[in-house]
């Protein structure tokens, strides 16, 4: 009897407590990456100051310098597209405890496939050809990642090692193709033939380079968030990532989930590669990516493996990247320093993630 009464009295305070707890946890979740970025920027400013630059000015330029007009915002979004795609895809892999370091290679393979489809198949309408190019990129990226996935589930080969090695293979394969079999015979530089017009990713505004890839990236990131958090397949994938033993006991197919997770991340990277070719350069080059595949890892990390948050962190890293280009033009700050700042962001994200877990336990 006593217990029942006590229970009733506590209903409201308990609900309030639960609400407060959820709120504080959410605040902690959101605050830590922001704090991590601020700390990293402060460190960066100090570093610049030590090197004889006006640190705070430079950092200000880095963040806001690229927001000059619509066009420069468009350029940021253009850079954000592959980062969001790759970052959101890696969130899925990381949630399943698959450490796919091979997004760069998967991007390259996606770009090759997109080029093959985009330079051939003449006579298709843009409504068919452009999506076909994207699909080719995604399928190729998934297949490339699938190699590492298969080696893992079949032979327990560490995907960290295999995906890194597959990066080299993909990048060197691209070099070989654009200097050999796929080289545009009329061009002096190593590059492929131009993609057919119908294969180009449509632009959002005709006089800007920004293409609809950014919309696709945001939609897919939202879709992956829903997949992970709300679908039963996503649930199984998270369980496999958190405790593969319990997953096996519960009757989940661990190998299949591992394959699904790594192939999703590969498809997203491959799609990013397709957009680089079909949306930006319209030809395949040797260095089609300035390291988007690696930066995507940092994007996922800063997003705490949440695809929804990867939209924001992808945007942030794109802003820093654009800002560094502005800096190069307007001041003497070497781009290496910008890379150092990006490195500090990643380190402080890791440090703050640890801090957040500690805070969560206390809260």
């Amino acid at each position, binding site marked *: 009897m006593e217990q029942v009464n006590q229970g009733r009295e506590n209903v409201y305070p308990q609900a309030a407590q*639960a609400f407060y707890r959820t709120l504080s946890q959410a605040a902690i979740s959101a605050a830590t990456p922001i704090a991590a970025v601020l700390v990293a920027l402060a460190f960066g400013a100090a570093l610049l100051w030590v090197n004889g630059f006006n640190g705070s000015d430079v950092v200000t330029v880095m963040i806001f310098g690229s927001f000059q007009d619509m066009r420069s915002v468009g350029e940021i979004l253009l850079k954000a597209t592959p980062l969001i795609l790759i970052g959101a895809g890696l969130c899925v892999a990381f949630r399943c405890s698959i450490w796919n370091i091979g997004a760069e290679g998967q991007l390259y393979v996606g770009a090759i496939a997109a080029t093959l489809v985009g330079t051939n198949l003449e006579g298709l309408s843009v409504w068919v050809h452009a999506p076909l190019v994207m699909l080719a990129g995604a399928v190729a990226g998934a297949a490339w990642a699938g190699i590492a996935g298969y080696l893992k589930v079949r032979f327990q080969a560490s995907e960290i090692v295999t995906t890194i090695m597959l990066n080299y293979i993909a990048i060197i394969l691209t070099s070989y193709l654009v200097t050999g079999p796929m080289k545009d015979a009329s061009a002096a530089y190593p590059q492929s033939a131009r993609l057919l017009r119908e294969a180009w990713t449509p632009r959002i505004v005709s006089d800007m380079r920004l293409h609809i890839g950014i919309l696709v990236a945001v939609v897919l990131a939202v879709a992956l968030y829903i997949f992970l958090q709300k679908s*039963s397949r996503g649930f199984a994938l998270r*369980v496999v990532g958190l405790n593969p*033993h319990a997953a*096996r*006991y*519960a009757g989940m197919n661990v190998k299949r989930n591992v394959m699904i997770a790594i192939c999703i991340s590969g498809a997203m990277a491959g799609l990013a590669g397709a957009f680089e070719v079909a949306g930006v350069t319209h030809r395949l080059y040797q260095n089609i990516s300035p390291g988007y595949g690696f930066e995507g890892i940092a994007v996922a990390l800063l997003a705490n493996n949440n695809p929804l948050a990867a939209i924001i962190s992808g945007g942030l890293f794109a802003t820093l990247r654009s800002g560094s280009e502005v800096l190069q033009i307007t001041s003497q700050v070497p781009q290496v320093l910008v890379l150092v700042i990006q490195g500090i962001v990643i380190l402080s994200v890791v440090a703050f993630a640890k801090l957040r877990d500690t805070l969560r336990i*206390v809260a």
Partner: protein
Amino acid sequence: MSPKPFLRIENIRKRFGSVVASDGVSLEIDEGEIHALLGENGAGKSVLMSMICGMVRPDEGEIVYKGQSVRFNSPREAIRQRIGMVHQHFMLVPNLTVAENYILGQGSALRVINDMDKVHARIRELSERYALDVRPEARIEDLSVGEQQRVEILKALFHGIDLLILDEPTAVLTPQETDRLLALMGDLVKDGKTVVFISHKLDEVMRVSNRISVMRDGRLVKTVNVADTDARGLARMMVGRDVRMELPRGPAAPGRIVLSIENLACRSETGLPALRGVSLDVRSGEIVGIAGVSGNGQTELSLALCGLLPVDSGRVVLNGQDITGLDPARINARSVAHIPEDRHKHGIVLPLSLGENTILQRYNESPFATSGMLNRRPIREHTRDLIRRFRIKSRDVDQKISELSGGNQQKLVVARELARNPDFILVNQLTRGIDIGAMEFVMEEMLKQRDNGRAILLISTELEELFAICDRILVMFHGEILGELPPDRNRLDELGLLMAGQTANVVQPPLAG
């Protein structure tokens, strides 16, 4: 008052995150006594002793040893002060010999290797003096658990100790080996050593100790002289109320055969033969127990029944259908429930919520999911229902299961498995690591399931658990069923002999069915 105590612990506190493991404990140990530290699992006994031997550093408080305040930063510093501890999980390198294990980390390797003969001689001498049967050249991996424990004790003696701490030493031993260990403790004290003996088993503690300190929830309840107390009084102190060791139960009414295992053989994950032709039947409405010292094939039996270990030969038949070699999902679907041995590894996913943990097997079934998407409301309602029915102490269905006590985690596992309406329930270590309240609750729940006509196979190393709820007990040794006994506490000796692999003295009763 007695002279200055040998070891005094003053107001020790230790927190791990939000868990208070030691909440201001003060305790005195006299020289030359056997002092038992008694308490349920999770009462804070091991943590307290780990602080004395330098494994864990206290947040607050003082340790006074031989009249001096000490603070050890590592076990090595404690050993230097002649304090040794034998942990529950042995700290031995399996592919080295006994002697090699003893000299690990003992200064210059070259010097030690030159003295290897002396090391061997000293081990033999100590082994003989305390009748430990330890051969210095034996490889650890070739030794049984009981032998390894003696190796650990001898290691402490080898390094020279005045205080020996034993953490749950009898958990892995047969009754005969336990007797031998208790006798050894007496010998050590005769030689002027002091022994602290951590246990949650009342009878052992009563048999050998001079004084007993009872711990509960990270606090010291009381220190008593063994002469001034009895098992009942100790039990009351341990749980804060009377423990009913006997659960009320009616006679079993076994019906049709639900599960039949025929001549099952399989190898362990390391490839060694683990089951050598096990045959048994479990009928509806009965609880069949499997007793045995751990490591005699029990783990492999439950893995094989769940479809997680390939079967070399033999059959498993459930409700007349052959389920040998099916995968876990198919076996789950044929109304087999499973309460695993290692809860944290196999039973639950610690970082997930209670709700998510209740749907681990049914995440893709109606009403918890429709067309591939999870349905939050039915999951929450189902979990709330289980929390209410099994009185699981928790805040909310969205709470992480890692925040619950072991007993409440186990209740959730039991609740989840029973909610699937199984015909056959496989239980491996029903009450491991949970408090007496939860223990009683889950045991009563098993009896209810039995009376509702379920077939239950209970694998356990806790004889008390088997006596309390089983209808018959099979003894497993070296991957075989050695015999069957009724759950009669008067036949404990027979059971102990069977557990040690001796069948000669036991009159085999005719097998049922």
